[in-house]
């Protein structure tokens, strides 16, 4: 069977999580992959927990069901950890990327995690320092470009530019790219 990489995003409404999943898909497509990006739709409110998903494959994607066993989990909002099991359904070699100032060892302990590899990045601080607002989605993408082989940093910067230019000024686009680059450098491994 063809290898399919599945990603599950955990965030809260207003943090750009759905946009992150969208840019992730577009970036993977720029790298020649077949892609899917889909949020889990429910009542949409600022601050409400939400999930979004990606599938990426070298061959056309037929699956149109939920992602239940994601190989990559991106936690955009660390305050979700108390209420949501972000490790649910993850395989032994899962990659976790968590937005937190803590180091990976502490987070592994907090999560009582026995498997996979865990990375942390202080995406909120990075977004506050670059964008001036707590929208950690683009730095999370920068971290994912570093720790997974699904998207490349160069493609990510290009696709972020294309995507955000539709809505944001050139200055803000540039600041998002700075956020990506910083997260790419600052993501911490165990």
């Amino acid at each position, binding site marked *: 069977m063809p290898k399919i990489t599945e990603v599950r995003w955990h965030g809260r409404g207003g943090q750009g999580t759905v946009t992150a999943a969208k840019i992730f898909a577009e970036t993977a497509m720029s790298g020649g992959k*077949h892609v899917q990006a889909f949020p889990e739709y429910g009542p949409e409110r600022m601050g409400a927990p939400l999930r979004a998903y990606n599938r990426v494959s070298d061959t056309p994607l037929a699956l149109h069901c939920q992602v239940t066993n994601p190989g990559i989990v991106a936690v955009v909002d660390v305050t979700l950890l108390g209420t949501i099991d972000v490790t649910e359904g993850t395989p032994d070699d899962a990659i976790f990327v968590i937005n937190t100032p803590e180091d990976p060892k502490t987070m592994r302990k907090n999560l009582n995690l026995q498997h996979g590899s865990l990375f942390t990045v202080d995406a909120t601080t990075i977004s506050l320092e670059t964008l001036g607002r707590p929208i950690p989605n683009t730095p999370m993408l920068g971290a994912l470009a570093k720790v997974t082989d699904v998207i490349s940093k160069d493609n990510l910067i290009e696709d972020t530019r294309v995507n955000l230019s539709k809505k944001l000024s050139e200055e803000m686009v540039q600041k998002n790219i700075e956020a990506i680059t910083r997260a790419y450098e600052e993501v911490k491994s165990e």
Partner: protein
Amino acid sequence: MGKQVAMTGNIAVANAMRQINPDVCAAYPITPSTEVMQQFASFVADGKVDTELVTVESEHSAMSAGIGAAAAGGRVMTATSANGLALMWEMLYIASGNRLPIAMMVINRALSAPINIHGDHSDEMGARDAGWIQMYSENGQEAYDNIIQAILIGESEGVLLPAMVGMDGFIISHSIENLELLEDKQVRDFLGEFKPKHPLLNINKPITMGPLDLQDYYSEHKRQQAQAMQKAKAAILKVAKDYKAVSGREYGFFEPYKLEDADIGILTLGSSAGTTRFVVDLMREKGIKVGMIKLRVFRPFPIEELQQALSHLKALAVMDRSDSFGAAGGPVFSEVRSALYDLPARPKTVNYIYGLGGRDLGISPIERVVKDLQEIHQTEKIKELVTHLTVRE
């Protein structure tokens, strides 16, 4: 070859509409179809199309305005979902009875109550007797391809019928996938200029449309409508052939997959077809001779073609993403089973109602269907004719 883009099913359809550039588009927003018209309204505002966009106060009015514009001689499109389609009910029959080739995108969604915004086929299946050509799409690419083809199918000589194209709400409408758009010019050349057959605006040949038609002629007109639907079969294949020449993508009434040497098979339509194909591959690796068939065209129902494609199977599961309460199974099942009745040898056929209100159809429930089919094949006995799948008991 067109360019690969990543976009939602809704945005792909809005782009198809932009390229089609209909004369008139009347619509009223309803989730999950809203995004189609929202994007299309931007195209109108930006001058990307010449379309007269009519913002109406209800779906009933949307279809009414569409009927008026189509009768006048315009190429007309709209989009809706669920209760919006239900509110059009009366006008759906008037569009088809007046032989007006309107093209409508239906972003399939569950009908209320209880209120639910997610994808199932209860809306479009409920309109199956309304005299519209009906097609279903597995993904955004197919939705895009189908709605472009729907224009020409409906306008074909001898057909002149409205056509609706379904796409599963949220599962496809709000999912980003990569797909290929044709160049604008390719679409416009493919469609050509619309020459309405009997436009009301032709003052040199005044006609009456929609007059009283009692015992003396109503039956003949309905018979003509039924014949037009039969003629649509040839038009569907002709348009598919021409479309393949432009796009490279092939379409028919249905798409079989690993069906030829199969003992057991699954028939499905919409987005679940992809997941089912995935399961077929998994099962084939285990040596299980299972195949599948994705139904694209539900109206006109391709009876003879399905008979040919399915007659060799020993057991068949028909998947329905809507129920027909009190009937002998879901709507797709009733028709497929009826089509197989005259075959000297036919598969034992069972029905699964699944995915109502957007309930996920994952890999394991489809594996269960395959297991059931294997048992039916071995024992030659059906335990349960109609099963509600993906439901708590």
